[in-house]
């Protein structure tokens, strides 16, 4: 038994080492080329400074659109995730149903957001709408799974206790189930909103709306100082989002 595990461990190590070597050799990571590129990289960075502050109005407009995409996209995901979460819960749905829905959700999670966005741009055209649809679709894969876990983690004993005390199904839902689920759902939704906002920053690159559009435009037209301003704005936004959400999530324990 032990010997078998050692053989397996050796095989895994060899496989990883092989994969790393193969990647290094075939991707022509040449130190000389990296060194010769150094001045070009320095020049590129130099052209980003000083960042051009005149693009402030574009930054505000783009950020607002990204924020709207994330908000409406999250709302769409919540609306889809409530029924799907119930259907993916093993305490609410029969095995055939929750297994199917869980597989479906895993498939949705496996498709990167940017890919969904590209397909949606193809389907409905440029602008924030494909972004919103992509965010709602992509986020549902995770959010519906979280909701189903929130449902499955509800303790049964307090429900039985309220029933024993003569409370009907609506009151049991309101006073035994809801207090157990609501904070978990709030926390999960805020977390997913944070991810949606971060991920939708780049949606503009494929034409699906938001601030990413400007990064792409300025880089393509060699206006690196403007691209730098937008990048700085994006970094500030990400930090701010995380700070706000950490503070919010702490309220729901």
């Amino acid at each position: 038994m032990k010997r078998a595990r050692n053989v397996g461990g050796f095989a895994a190590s060899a496989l990883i080492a092989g994969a790393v070597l193969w990647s290094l050799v075939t991707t022509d990571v040449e130190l000389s080329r990296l060194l010769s590129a150094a001045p070009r990289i320095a020049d590129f960075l130099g052209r980003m400074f000083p960042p051009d502050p005149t693009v402030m109005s574009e930054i505000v407009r783009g950020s607002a659109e990204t924020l709207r995409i994330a908000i409406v996209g999250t709302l769409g995901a919540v609306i889809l995730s409530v029924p799907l979460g119930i259907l993916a819960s093993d305490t609410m749905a029969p095995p055939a149903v929750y297994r199917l829905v869980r597989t479906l959700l895993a498939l949705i999670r496996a498709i990167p957001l940017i890919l969904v966005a590209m397909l949606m741009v193809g389907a409905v055209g440029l602008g924030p709408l494909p972004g919103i649809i992509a965010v709602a679709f992509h986020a549902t894969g995770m959010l519906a799974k979280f909701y189903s876990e929130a449902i499955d983690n509800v303790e049964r004993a307090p429900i039985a206790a309220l029933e024993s005390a003569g409370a009907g199904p609506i009151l049991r839902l309101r006073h035994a189930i809801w207090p157990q689920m609501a904070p978990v759902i709030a926390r999960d939704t805020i977390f997913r909103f944070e991810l949606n906002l971060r991920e939708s920053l780049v949606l503009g690159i494929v034409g699906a709306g938001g601030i990413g559009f400007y990064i792409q435009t300025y880089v393509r037209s060699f206006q690196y100082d403007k691209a730098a301003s937008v990048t700085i704005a994006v970094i500030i936004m990400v930090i701010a989002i995380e700070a706000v959400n950490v503070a919010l999530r702490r309220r729901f324990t």
Partner: protein
Amino acid sequence: MTPAIQTEDLAFSHLGSGLPALAEVALLTPEGAAIALLGPSGAGKTTLLTLLDGRLRGWHGRATVLGSALDPDRAPPLARRADTGFIFQEFALVERSTVLRNVLNGRLARMEFFRALLARPSPNDVTIARTALEDCGIADLAERRVDSLSGGQRQRVAIARCLAQEPRLILADEPVSNLDPVRAAEILSLLTRAARKRGATTVFSSHQPELARRFAERVIGMRNGRIVFDMATEDLSEDATVQLYQDAENPLSPLLQVVQ
């Protein structure tokens, strides 16, 4: 005096197990008394209490609780369930809610529906809940969340919830088995005192004959799903309790024999 509980030939066996959890159980309980249900693990105490609370299906025999017959195939109407209070061994509280909210949960069936739904209890409901908290010695914990409490405090909250329900019959399933002997006596003392103050009948199950002696007027001994004795507490002899627990079908015993 009308009996709080009257049963005849109760029988029940858990799905898949050939052994009866209850067999030929007959009980007659006068209203307003405190009754202890003694017996080893697996004697059928929890099964009997669950049946009397109207939460067991598929049993046989006849059972009348507070003057209404129980139906083996369906739960009693909600309004009637409020008259029977149940205290769970594992408390069964909503951990994330406050103590006061949990105690008010016991009164949901007594409130107007919309007050109950919107969690806007009337001043009268709040007074009753706070009195129950006082009787359980935890008035100062009203605004605390249950998940911040100790085991003994949680059991007091569970009892307060049951008292706030204003039941005429209180069924308590091993209400003190998780507590040390001093706390156990405290809790049973406050439970039986509060029940007496409200004129409610109390049936509590326990492993400890000395607690039955101190807090019950009547003791019922159960073993292997049968009632082996039913007597006034002062008649309970040492022999009877020793016999009750001797060679009980303890799930551990075959293992212990192997070890020995």
